[in-house]
């Protein structure tokens, strides 16, 4: 058994884990990072397309290039990195937490620490979760699994592909498949609008004349041992019009139907999760209700931009440092109001900088973001366009807040009008 003690242990070596670990290390703390893969970088390493890093680095980078910038710092910072290791358990109580993992090289590993940063990312919603009827042949993949098989292992998942879901992952994969010689017959989207960026509709679908069917669903998958086709059904007023179902012959179905924060470890450790995000409830310092356990990145809430992941993780690491120094700050509740699906974190601290991330429930042009404390609006911001698939980021500095008395509830409600 390997037994070591650190100030902080970071679970996950993707963008969030690396940025958080670097920020903690910058405070002079001892840090360990753990990851199941045999490489640093997490999911970025299979996202070989460009479009990352404009906010964070001012450059148009591929996923691996974005990761490289963090990896090279991690490898020269004196952070202990344990690859090929799986975390099994988080236990203990403030201030002595224990992260138990196992790895071929070490057997069981007991890493004692005072702070844990959860950065495990998310998993993909799969066919079972969306209950598509039909058979269970080979040839059905989530888009991320297909991306991994193609870009890391070099395998072609199929030759004639139907993509379910028009989010960016699906669109990027449609282009990727076409470039390696597969034929993408259609992208099928349940909503009446595509959920990925307009630029991706352009450079991934239009460039290759791939048809996009909005307001349609794949109602059945057929094929005994391998997929041989799908039935596609249009939605009329939100309900499937089975009479208009048409068939596409294909050998592969890819699903890009959503991401779910991967919080099994958190749940097992008793960290309370928020219903609206699927990730831990956290305070203004991104610390969960379990003292010493922090969360950042996709495990906290699903992000659209890795640049925001890195920023959030960095702030989380800085908060870990303050926590380890014994600092405390006055906090009040932060909740989602009208037309807001979720807001993270769940508390704000008027005496420090706050970054809020929220998602809209509605699609609207010329919307207004309204912030109220105790029913009184103290700040608003114009939003030219809101839609659920685009995360909204809002900075709140101490100067932005009205005077607040310590013994009032001061609950901050964020709403979209």
């Amino acid at each position, binding site marked *: 058994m390997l037994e070591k003690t650190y100030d902080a242990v970071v679970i996950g070596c993707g963008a969030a884990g690396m940025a958080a670990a670097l920020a903690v290390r910058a405070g002079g703390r001892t840090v360990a990072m753990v990851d*199941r893969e045999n490489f640093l970088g997490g999911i970025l390493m299979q996202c070989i397309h460009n479009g990352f890093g404009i906010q964070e680095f001012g450059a148009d980078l591929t996923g691996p290039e974005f990761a490289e910038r963090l990896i090279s710092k991690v490898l020269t910072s004196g952070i202990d990195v344990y690859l090929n290791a799986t975390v099994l358990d988080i236990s203990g109580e403030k201030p002595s937490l224990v992260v138990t993992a196992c790895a071929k090289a070490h057997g069981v590993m007991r890493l004692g620490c005072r702070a844990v940063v959860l950065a495990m990312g998310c998993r993909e919603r799969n066919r*079972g979760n969306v*209950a598509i009827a039909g*058979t269970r042949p080979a040839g059905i993949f989530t888009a991320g699994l297909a991306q991994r098989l193609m870009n890391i292992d070099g395998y072609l998942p199929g030759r004639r592909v139907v993509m379910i879901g028009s989010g960016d992952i699906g669109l990027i994969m449609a282009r990727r498949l076409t470039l390696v010689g597969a034929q993408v017959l259609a992208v099928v989207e349940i909503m009446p609008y595509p959920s990925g960026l307009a630029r991706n509709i352009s450079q991934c679908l*239009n460039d290759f004349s791939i048809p996009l069917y909005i307001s349609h669903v794949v109602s059945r998958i057929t094929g005994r041992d391998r997929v041989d086709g799908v039935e596609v059904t249009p939605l009329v007023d939100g309900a499937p019009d089975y009479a208009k179902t048409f068939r596409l012959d294909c050998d592969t179905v890819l699903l890009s139907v959503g991401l779910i924060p991967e919080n099994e470890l958190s749940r097992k450790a008793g960290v309370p999760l928020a219903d609206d995000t699927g990730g831990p409830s956290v305070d203004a310092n991104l610390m969960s209700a379990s003292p010493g356990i922090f969360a950042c990145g996709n495990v906290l809430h699903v992000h659209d931009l890795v640049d925001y992941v890195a920023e959030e993780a960095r702030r989380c690491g800085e908060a870990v440092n303050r926590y380890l120094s014994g600092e405390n700050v006055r906090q009040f509740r932060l909740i989602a109001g009208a037309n807001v699906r979720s807001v993270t974190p769940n508390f704000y601290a008027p005496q420090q900088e706050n970054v809020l991330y929220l998602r809209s429930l509605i699609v609207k042009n010329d919307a207004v973001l309204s912030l109220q404390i105790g029913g009184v609006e103290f700040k608003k911001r114009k939003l030219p366009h809101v839609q659920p698939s685009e995360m909204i980021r809002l900075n709140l500095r101490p100067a932005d807040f009205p005077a607040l008395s310590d013994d009032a509830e001061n609950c901050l409600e964020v709403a979209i009008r």
Partner: protein
Amino acid sequence: MFDVAIIGAGVTGAAIARRLSSFKLSVALLERRTDVSFGVSKANSGIIHAGFHHNPSTLKARLEVQGNFLFDRLKAELGFPFRRVGILVVAFSPEELKTVEALYMIGIANRVPQIEIVGRERILSLEPKLNGDVVGGLWAPTGGIVEPYRLVFALVENARANGVSLFTDWSVAAARRADDRWLLVSEKGETHEARRVVNAAGLYADEVSGIFGAEEFHIIPRKGEEFLLDKNAAGFPSHVIFPVPARNSKGVLVIPTVEGTMMVGPTAVEIEEKDDTGTTPENLDRVFSLAARMVPGISKRDIITSFAGLRPTLPGDDFFIDLSRKAPGLVQVAGIQSPGLTAAPAIAEYVKELLQKDGLDLTEKPDFVPTVGHSPKVVEMNFAELDELARRERAFAHIVCRCESVSEAEVVEAIHKGHISLDGIKFYTRAGMGRCQGGFCTYRILSIIARETGLPVEAITKRGKGSELVVGRIGEAPLTAQAAAGGATAPEGSGG
């Protein structure tokens, strides 16, 4: 030359093979698919029934109760997951209660131990998650739950350890009688000889019977869809919950599985195709409303996956287990639908007696080993045990399936036991069965199979030939016209 050839390695064939393996006999177990338990037994609810559904005059009623009784010993010997969680049949009206009482009388006539009628207060204390409108029901504590594939794998493993030869991808295409033996020919042209044959071919028992020129009957496949719900789902009962039964089925059940997930279903629809295991959207809502009526808190949101299985039914609905009167040396074991799994150990005894009646000489093997070694599983260990084990075999400390905590060592063991398809490994180890449904472990398992078997990854299948996972390596396919046309400008907006 074999003394006995068993056609079909589902739970029935596997149980018979294991029973015969305790005698000095040469036995062949022939399975048409790429792995055992891949036919009817692949989609089974895993319920060990108590024995109050079927009329005592039927063969299935007798074998059901006997089989139920034999499960404790079988589990002690073979170590598959099995728990007697008990079965509750719930009634919501006085009429339903009358049906429940009729079931109780059947149970008494079948000599089911410990069965009793319970009133509303008692049933709610037994199962607090029930709908408060329940008026009473039947409590059968001898009912239980089992992991069906692990049961079949354990039966086959023990049979093989005691000398039974397993042949997979072996489908009987023809049979010729010569002297006192049968010459069996497979679809690929391979041959085996056997003095006696057991037809335990599930959905294809009628076709196999025809191949032997034996009795004519017609197997009607009856499809059942089941839904698997998350471990963390609310409304998770402690016992198996049955409604009052319908005409041709025991109804939509709520089943706490022995692995800790929950199953809702099955449905019962007669179909024509023996290969049609597709699920349908119409059934989803119906099944869930039936289930939620009994256990509120069950929700479609918790669905991890759904699947459908086929049961081989015969007109009259009873088991057809007998020596053939037309084909010498052939034992028919057909129409083994529910309670087939429960009855399997008793069916094995019954078949053994039929073979003996036919003249098969049964001498006990003194060196018969009734137990299988316990394979270590990371999910069952504490950290100290895991560390100790990892010292001896490092691959136990390498977790391949994170959702179910399955180690590389367990996957390698499954492969060495002959499970080289993804489904075979999934059923043996549970890798790929969890929350992410293979999203994170598929690529790892593919590379482990390739490493251990030498198979190219393109040849690795989901469940046998025709279900290969990937179609090749990238860089080998020429660009399609579509991609080449990527060089031309395309108009904006398309489709829909």
